[in-house]
């Protein structure tokens, strides 16, 4: 067995050790250790991805001395290290870009704890990507919930406390629903590991026994993960949580964490339940409708938002609707588009949060739109970044946002009754995106008023460089999507096997 195959385990363990280390060492070391950890994690996930790509394989890695139905396992195909790489890169850039705000928003005595929670968030996301066991999934979901509550509540002042309470209530309902689903699944199959579970579920479904309990279990697990990733009717917590946190936390919460749950959902659907049974249970239609509802309703909310960060957060909820719509299409191509949307949103949203918070810094920390008028002139790099992000969100060709929309639209023509709702939702959501994102992008470049109280700020390299890296990724994905699409196609094919 190649040493590369142990890298998922090593990256998880390194994260845990780093979290323990940050807990006891002084805060400067915490920051350095976390940055190193994120960098190492990027390298390791990249290596595993390369290994799996070259060998065109997915492999199970035994966690201990006992084989599959008895011991724990982790599984790496193309999707898992790919998502791990994406999450590590985005977290690294967010943490660098939001570093100045962390120093400002987080009390001195709590900074090392902030780094601990960042490390634990990374670990839980990696474990959620790689896990091959449904109960391990639950445990790491809980770590992710608690760590993200820490990320959110660490900010002094503001409404972050109320946002945390709201977030926790929703998140705990989500994890409880997921756990009930796990219990029902275990009760009727007696298995917890994905491969065995999939066989048992397929056998049960074919035999027709316990079909009602199985359907309920599938529904509960899906609903739990949907609540946690802020799917449409349960997105009430999301705008508050994402807009009240400190910048780096906002980037991590909306760029990465909600996607972690979506990836786990994809894994459970395709690896644990099996696509056929999931589609037969009818849950995908609900996901499709909820996704469409989210795309439209949250975009309308975003139009009425009066503060920049709240608008970006509502747009997150709308973009998550796309992901669920893709999963709900129930086809391999739909899933490809959903994964493309995950990648697109993960690189674009942190860029918007980073540049948005710099623009508000250039307006004395104000977030309301009248104050932001002309902010692009006061901080040119942030203005450029925000414009790129906004244009990409609208879906202009040559930028990343266009690619998933194209694939969604293409796939929609292959569908049955879902075709017209999907196309209509895409069109409406694009128009709404134009309304709020282009409006903002224009607003920040308007000439400043004569009596403007705000002065230009000197941009710091550590603030805009991560944004430019994300923008580079965005443009690269938009101009030359071929390799990425091919990779995701292969990953989706490996997932169902």
């Amino acid at each position, binding site marked *: 067995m190649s040493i590369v195959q142990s890298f998922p385990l090593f990256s998880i363990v390194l994260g845990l050790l780093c979290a323990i280390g940050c807990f006891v060492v002084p805060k400067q070391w915490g920051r350095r250790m976390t940055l190193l950890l994120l960098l190492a994690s990027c390298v390791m996930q990249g290596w595993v991805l390369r290994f799996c790509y070259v060998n065109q394989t997915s492999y199970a890695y035994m966690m201990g001395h006992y084989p599959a139905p008895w011991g724990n396992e982790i599984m790496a195909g193309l999707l898992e290290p790919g998502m791990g790489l994406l999450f590590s890169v985005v977290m690294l850039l967010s943490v660098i870009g939001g570093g100045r705000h962390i120093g400002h928003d987080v009390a001195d005595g709590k900074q090392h704890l902030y780094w601990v929670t960042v490390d634990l968030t990374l670990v839980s996301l990696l474990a959620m990507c790689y896990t091959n066991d449904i*109960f391990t999934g639950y445990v790491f979901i809980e770590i992710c919930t608690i760590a993200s509550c820490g990320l959110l509540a660490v900010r002094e*002042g503001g409404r972050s406390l109320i946002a945390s309470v709201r977030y926790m209530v929703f998140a705990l309902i989500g994890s409880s629903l997921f756990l009930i689903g796990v219990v029902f699944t275990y009760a009727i199959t007696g298995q917890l590991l994905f491969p065995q579970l999939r066989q048992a579920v397929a056998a049960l479904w074919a035999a027709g026994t316990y079909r*009602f309990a199985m359907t309920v279990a599938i529904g509960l697990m899906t609903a739990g993960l949907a609540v946690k990733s802020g799917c449409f009717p349960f997105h009430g917590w999301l705008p508050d949580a994402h807009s009240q946190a400190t910048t780096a936390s906002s980037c991590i919460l909306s760029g990465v964490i909600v996607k972690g749950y979506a990836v786990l959902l994809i894994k459970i659907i395709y690896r644990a339940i099996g696509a056929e049974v999931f589609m037969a249970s009818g849950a995908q239609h609900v996901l499709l409708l909820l996704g469409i509802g989210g795309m439209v309703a949250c975009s309308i909310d975003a139009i009425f938002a009066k503060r920049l960060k709240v608008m970006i957060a509502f747009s997150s909820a709308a973009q998550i609707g796309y992901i669920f719509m893709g999963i709900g299409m129930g086809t391999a191509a739909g899933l490809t588009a959903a994964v493309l949307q995950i990648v697109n949103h993960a690189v674009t949203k942190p860029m918007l949060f980073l540049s948005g918070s710099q623009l508000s810094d250039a307006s004395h920390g104000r977030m309301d739109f009248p104050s932001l008028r002309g902010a692009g002139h006061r901080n040119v790099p942030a203005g450029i970044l925000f414009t790129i992000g906004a244009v990409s969100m609208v879906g202009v060709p040559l930028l990343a946002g266009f690619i998933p929309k194209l694939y969604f639209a293409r796939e929609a023509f292959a569908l049955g009754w879902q075709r017209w709702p999907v196309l209509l939702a895409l069109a409406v959501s694009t128009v709404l995106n134009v309304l709020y994102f282009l409006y903002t992008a224009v607003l920040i470049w308007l000439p400043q008023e004569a009596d403007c109280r705000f002065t230009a700020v000197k941009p710091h390299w550590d603030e805009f460089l991560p944004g430019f890296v994300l923008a580079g990724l965005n443009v690269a994905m938009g101009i030359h999507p071929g390799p990425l699409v091919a990779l995701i196609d292969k990953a989706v094919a490996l997932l169902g096997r």
Partner: protein
Amino acid sequence: MANSDSAFRRWLRGEVDLSAELRTAEMPVPPEEARYHPRHHTAMIHMIFRQSHRFYVALVAVLCVVLFTVLLLAAANLPAYGDSEAPTNNEVTERYVNRGVEETGAVNAVAGLILDYRAFDTLGESFVLFTALCAVTILMSRGRRKHPLPMETDYADYYADPIVHTMCKVIIPVILVFGVYVLVNGHLSPGGGFSGGAILSSALIIYAMVWGDERAHGTIRERAIRRTAALALGFYVVSKTYSFYTGANGLHSVISPGVPGRIFSAGLILPLNVAVGLVVCCTMYSFYMFFRRGEL
């Protein structure tokens, strides 16, 4: 100046109740940045909120009723309670029960299950505790600001009470011994790291309650708690990584199950139980101290 003047005049006219000000001064004041002063059209927003809220509650109530009916029906659809032929009693359970003792060396099948067969879950579980400890510290730690804790209105000096004091002197060692027993016998009898650690922490909590937080703070140092927790977790991670790595690569592991039934047996399970117990003990005691006095 004009302000104080007018206040003085009002006082002269008997309109100001000085004792009222004294009373408000006693109340702990929330920190300045957090206080909140709404200004705009309060009544309307109040009404809109109430209206939309009522609709929302009704909707959620209907959803809940539907959800629980469905759950009850699903529970009726499950395999019969106590059935030995249920799908859960399959080859997985067979092996845990039949070969568990020889493979893990643990007489207690649950300990063997959570610390050897499915150790990755349990590793995650200890880190759930650790994450919660960090989050609680973030929330409760008073940091530099040191805003005062609310005054104790019902403060009881347990230390001055001879009965409580003497009884606790007797009972704390007993609890400690029981906790250690549960901890180190985790692979032989019911119990193990989690319950043993909670029992140990209860002894520490009683000590802090009776002898006072300040004294407990002096005896059990913050640094010691943090380092113990970090060391125990570190040991857990490192030793389990060794066992995961050797297992996955088919390497020979130096850890052997030993003779089942002996106290020093079951390979890693005993040290892991001790490590988990220390983590749980430190975490629970830290929770207590944070809730009690806002710092360790």
